[in-house]
């Protein structure tokens, strides 16, 4: 990555699609998604804004993929849940539609909005709009990126020689993976080795 990054990556026309997820009643039970859609429609460069019952469901992903083609979208905003939840899902979806996955941005209007402000509907709605606008603002400046490939050392380490560690080591080793099993005590076995017969088989634990 030695080439000079472009300061102005967006020479072409910007076409942003915005998807507001209901997440069943998780989001829609607190705020009307349609209001956010209406708001998003008024934002610059947004050519498509719509709500969807479950953006992460097949139907939701299909909608986004079809829209990318139909509306020639080159940026996507998904206002739904946490990036820790579904960022990989939507990145994969836009990638399937031929868009660089890094041109998709999520706004977290569930964990960090409707769930946290369930008793302040007006506040939650205003926040959902702002978070969506903020994602729209960000996608304007997103650039196409490629994942970085790194080589993999095909060797595992398992830390802890109790029953979980032994199980993991055996499974790895039986797949042919070199595995180092590290145990701080002089013997592996962990707590299990100290036990008398164990449930449910009532056999010796060792």
């Amino acid at each position, binding site marked *: 990555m030695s080439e000079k990054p472009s300061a102005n990556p967006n020479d072409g026309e910007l076409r942003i699609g915005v998807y507001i997820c209901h997440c069943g009643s998780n989001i829609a039970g607190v705020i009307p998604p349609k209001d956010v859609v209406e708001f998003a429609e008024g934002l610059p460069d947004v050519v498509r804004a719509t709500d969807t019952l479950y953006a992460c469901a097949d139907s939701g992903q299909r909608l986004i993929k079809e829209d990318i083609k139909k509306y020639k979208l080159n940026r996507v905003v998904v206002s739904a849940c946490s990036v820790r939840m579904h960022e990989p899902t939507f990145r994969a979806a836009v990638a399937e539609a031929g868009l660089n996955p890094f041109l998709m941005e999520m706004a977290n209007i569930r964990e960090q909005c409707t769930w946290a402000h369930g008793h302040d509907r007006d506040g939650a709605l205003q*926040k959902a709009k702002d978070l969506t606008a903020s994602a*729209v603002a960000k996608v304007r400046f997103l650039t196409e990126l490629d994942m970085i490939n790194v080589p993999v050392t095909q060797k595992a380490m398992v830390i*802890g020689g109790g029953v*979980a560690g032994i*199980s993991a080591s055996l499974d790895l080793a039986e797949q042919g993976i070199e595995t180092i099993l590290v145990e701080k005590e*002089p013997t592996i076995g962990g707590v299990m080795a100290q036990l008398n017969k164990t449930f449910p088989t009532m056999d010796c634990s060792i």
Partner: protein
Amino acid sequence: MVDAARQPKIDVRAFTEVEKVEGFVGNFKVTLREKAKYVRADRCNGCGACTLACPVEVPNYFEMSLAPRKAAYVPMSQSVPLIYSIDMENCIQCYKCVDACGALEAIDFSQEDKLVEEDIGAIVVATGFSHFDPSVMEEYGYARYPNVITAMEMERLNNSAGPTSGDLIRPSDHESPKTLAFINCVGSRDKRYNPYCSNFCCMYSIKNAVLLKQMNPDVDITIYYMDIRTPSKGYEEFYDRAREMGIHFSQGRPSLITENPETHNLYVHAEDIALGRVTEKEYDMVMLNQAAIPQPDQNHMSSVLNVAQSPGGWFMEYHPKLRPIDSPTDGIFFAGACLGPKDIPSSVAQGSAAAARASRILHSEEWDIEPTVAVVWPDRCSAETKGRACGLCVKACPYGAVKLEGDKAAEIITAKCHGCGGCVAECPEDAITQLHYTDAQILAQMRALLAEKPEEKILAFRCHWCSYGGADLAGTSHFEYTANERGMKVMCSARMDSDFIYEAFRLGAGGVLYSGCHPQDCHYITGQVVGAKRASRLKKTFDRMGMTEGRFRIEWISAAEGDKYARVLNEMQDVLDNIPPEELHEEIERLKPEMSKRLKNFPGVPGVEEAMVYSDKLVKAITSQLEAK
């Protein structure tokens, strides 16, 4: 156990500790400390002659100190690996073991701890759990009453390989007890010690009761419980069987055990919930089913591995439902009770699960990592422009990923860069940017969030790994906080550029939260340190400016601290609520020129000016919509 020892692909390194973990998925470098055993593994044949010869006896941890071992020892006869060691802390160096070992010459007093480096593609962490020490619960008299024992002690006393060859006896008089009480939830489901359910103790006490009853049907066993939890396959049936065998179950948590000072018999005081009556029953022996607790060195391991801990100290999974085996660090996985108390079947299952997660990586030649790395604009770097390298980027980088030589512009070694953004924020020339988190992107986001009534808003900068997770947890736990919060996410607090904070206040933000991981949890080793230093500098600057205390706040919030995230935001809202609006307005206006002064170079950062132009358009679109309403 034995299978593991026999499996040729498994290299068992017992008596070894993990010292350091560096690198990233597919490319970890792990430093191990192989502790000196004073016995050469390549020569020891496990004959045990050294143990026989050794004159020193010390308590054996493996037998819960109920039996001694020698200073030359293996913890148990089936130890894997069966290599003896000399416990140098207790060894009196009489060298009798050396004589006993004879021609094998396996004993080597010159051994020292050895540091070994290993290249590893993926790591499974299965460090297990420890046991709650019930002596802190004075009401049960453990460690004062000889006949009150723990479940682990019971395991050894009842074990044919144990110190009594499986004969259960009372410590006070070595008689076999006729009446026993088992007490569940000792130190668990107890907010004074550990609030969580310890998961396996119900089945565990039933198992022990059944075993004892099978050995001796005359023995009378009462299990005191609050709830019996038998959620897995076959568990409830086993519980039924225990009841049918005549094991007594008494619902009600004992509040007190007293002892007859002469007979050392014990009296368990409890309410029989079904009767609503207090009972005081006499027993020969009482077993306390103590809670599982995190390993004593779990905090240490957490910082070695750079992984976060849940409340209570267990390791924290990346997502409790969707990625229950993953750590937040790609390539590190968890299995077993280090994540929380777990029984054997679940631990085995998690071991397999972790192996499966890890083998995705280990079976690949290459692995993808996020491209959110730092990139230099060489024409802005002072090394190139002024021939004078300031070196701040080098100082900020926890990974040594910045190459700075002579008067050549700094260069980022992409393979080493983990993408914390510390160098980007530290660079005084704004010569470095971070892909996917450029100044322009962040500025555009901020301006959108502060488009309307900024003085009412609290702009919250959160790092991706901890505070953003904390905010998520606040939501999933439905800990409600002020809806005036407006969240911004960057990868690490190191990326939270002073310019962003000045800009937020220049735009008129009511409050700004600067939050990231606790120092020991930081995903980027020392990223948090870089961020924290900057934050405290900012705090001092704002104090000097006369900003109301609490409008700028620094908090370290882990992904497990949803309650803290909510509390901090609500406290910040209180600060704003307590400033009369006209005073707040006056303060914001008064400080704006101060902020602008400090932002004079900001518009020159590539992309920033464009972001300003664009966000003006966006802000107009937002405000006009609101006005239309």
